[in-house]
């Protein structure tokens, strides 16, 4: 069995199966199929659906959440989670509103929004990586803390004196029906897709999520990678805060309430394993589109938002349960 002298070792192929066959079996294709079906159903259900302006408006319902979702996807793949993202939005928005009161210009406001995101992300990151606390609990705490600070600052008041050009981030159009937010969404999809799938950093994120101990033994600085991921999630929450605040034109402490669970739902529906180690940005993009289309399509039929959420909740469980159910039934048959 040992290597015989002179014999040429067996050559291993790079890939087991051809690219097309692998793609066909992937989660993303399943999701894309569902997305197409929903798209077709929508076109049948309402004559208003296929209007470019309407579709453009509809994207605003998910772009901000999806932007956070990209960073959250990386974080969840690494085996952590951040439930404080909506709290960060509230705090960042409050900070921007506060600065706007004192006449701060648009560039300064954006910087403040992003800076609050960084600080909050760093706070989460330090608690998780330095003190070794479980991220789900830490961020349940910081979720209340961040939003709570907004409540302390604002109470029942609102900030609304934003400069006119600030509105561009939430209401501006880059080209025809392509809104600034949609552009940003596409841009971040590419950036995060690139980061996760084509860089050393992304590879390390997968390795950590799959087996943090083996990753440590492989020379990956696990705490540092996780810290960066918390910072990224914080920054993206800051970006979302800028867009949402600009879109609403006002800040109240209840802004973006309960978004954290919607964002996690989007990420998990996109095929990111909640246990870490698996998932893709493409999946998250498609999941965002699915949720956006369901919301918009049912909205056109004046179906209340809460009923739409039954659909997303059921979809979430169904897409994860079905493959396992089928496996279970097959196993039952063979044994």
């Amino acid at each position, binding site marked *: 069995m040992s290597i015989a002298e002179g014999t040429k070792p067996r050559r291993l192929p790079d890939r087991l199966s051809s690219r097309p066959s692998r793609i066909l079996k992937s989660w993303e294709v399943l999701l894309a199929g569902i997305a197409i079906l929903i798209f077709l159903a929508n076109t049948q259900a309402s004559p208003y659906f296929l209007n470019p302006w309407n579709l453009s408006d509809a994207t605003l319902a998910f772009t901000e959440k999806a932007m956070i979702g990209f960073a959250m996807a990386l974080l969840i793949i690494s085996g952590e989670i951040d439930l404080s993202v909506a709290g960060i939005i509230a705090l960042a928005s409050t900070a921007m509103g506060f600065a706007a009161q004192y006449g701060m210009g648009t560039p300064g406001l954006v910087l403040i929004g992003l800076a609050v995101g960084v600080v909050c992300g760093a706070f989460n990151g330090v608690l998780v990586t330095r003190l070794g606390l479980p991220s789900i609990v830490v961020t349940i705490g910081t979720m209340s803390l961040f939003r709570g600070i907004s409540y302390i600052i604002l109470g029942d008041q609102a900030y609304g004196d934003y400069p006119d050009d600030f509105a561009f981030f939430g209401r501006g159009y880059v080209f025809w029906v392509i809104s600034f937010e949609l552009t940003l969404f596409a841009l971040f999809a590419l950036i995060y897709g690139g980061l996760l799938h084509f860089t050393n950093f992304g590879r390390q994120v997968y*390795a950590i999520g799959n*087996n943090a*101990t083996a990753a440590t033994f492989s020379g990956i600085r696990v705490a540092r990678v996780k810290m960066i991921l918390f910072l990224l999630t914080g920054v993206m929450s800051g970006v979302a805060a800028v867009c949402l605040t600009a879109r609403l034109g006002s800040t109240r402490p209840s802004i973006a309430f309960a978004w954290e669970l919607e964002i996690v739902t989007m990420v998990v529906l996109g095929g990111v394993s909640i246990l870490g180690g*698996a998932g893709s940005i493409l999946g998250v993009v498609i999941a965002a589109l699915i949720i956006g289309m369901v919301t918009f399509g049912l909205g056109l039929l004046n179906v209340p938002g809460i009923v739409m959420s039954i659909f997303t909740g059921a979809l979430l469980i169904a897409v994860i349960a079905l493959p396992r159910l089928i496996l279970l039934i097959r196993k039952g048959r063979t044994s």
Partner: protein
Amino acid sequence: MKDTETTATPVLRLSGVTKTFPGVTALSQVELALYPGQVTALIGENGAGKSTLVKILTGIYQPDEGQIVVDGDPVRFPSATAATEAGITAIHQETVLFDELSVAENIFLGHAPRGRFGLIDWARMREDAAAILDRIGARIDPRTLLGDLGIGSKHLVAIARALSVDARVVIMDEPTASLSQAEIEELYDLVERLKGEGKAILFISHKFDEVFRIADRYTVFRDGEMVDAGMIADTTEDKLVEKMVGRSMDAIFPTREHKPGDEVLRVEDFAHPTEFDGISFTLRRGEILGLYGLVGAGRSEVMQALFGVTRPSRGQVRLNGETLRIRAPADAIANGIVYVPEDRGKQGAIGAMPIFQNVTLPSLGTTSKAGFVRMAEEFALARKYTERLDLRASALDQNVGNLSGGNQQKVVIAKWLATQPAVIILDEPTKGIDVGSKAAVHEFMAELAAKGLSVIMVSSEIPEILGMSDRVIVMRDGLMVSEHDRDGLTPETLVRAAAGYEGEAA
């Protein structure tokens, strides 16, 4: 003990038991008999199949073939409870205890005494626990939280747990591994008492002194097969060692003509608050340094501190004369020191990632450009090293988790060789892998040493240590006990040094 009893029918008998796992046959047509009032020692190297056997006897695993016969009737143990109910109890080698529960509850979990309304009677449970602990001479308060105990006391609790059921068969899987000398003596007394009560005892141990002290019978396993059995009185330690390592004696290790060169690595007065102390050694270019000792001797801990996984409290590491500051594995890797860990599944391979990505993980700096991965480079690097190790896989994008143990190990070794290290530490490099893969790994190790790579090989397998090392260091209880040159070194010397048998030094 009457003579008639020794020839009496066994309480428990295994016949033709076979158990296979994907890629590995753990047990093959194994026979075993346990007699009332007698201690049967089960002897074998790591990976010989002892632990699998224990799991089959306690209902954790079900055998693929063969029979378990209790009192002459064939039985099946579909769960742990079933085995307990059949009167079989075990002290497991790995901790199967609960840190967050009290000592009393750890002893009685699953069969706690019930009081009124069928509720658990805590008072009685504590009393009973105290009684059992007292019986084994353990001075532990049953109300203590298990997590607050040291590893030795935890082991005593595990023993108490095994004795809390009224069993006829008691399995002890390396029961003295973590005990102090005084505790070991008390355990021996306990074994005598259990014998007196007519219980059949299966005693698994590496330590020949204790086998000869307390066992009545022996059974030797090697590579999942039963190779010998008989009465202790009819054998000698040398014979048992030979039986135990027999196969490996015959195995051909690569011939190594190359002479070690200059000193590469020097470790001085290395210490850790809890794991090891006073470790000093050197390593030369092209040398294979064997590090031998029993499980728990602190070998892996020294190596992991050297690699930066844990922080030593004291000591110096010099590479080519320069003092290194190693705070994390990344620092060690940057300096050309790499570590192939013992626990493949947890520390070595990332099962859900493809082969090529596993191989390139510590080398991403060289396969990437400006931080971006280059798949073609990755495949090339992965192919280069996996093919040299004769990896058996379908393709390089196959997930490592789907490979056999031996092939997983090749991937892990390939991963480290791809970093082109100066020093490679191999922790139990051939543990639990098949003979063919073993040979490939050994041959490659020799080849690497010949090319000037310095190797530290941690191993519990005596033939491997003897067959591969230029020099051998033996550790026991976190300390270096002896250092040996390859020439004239015998298995017995090593076993004695590691077990502390017949004095301290060899």
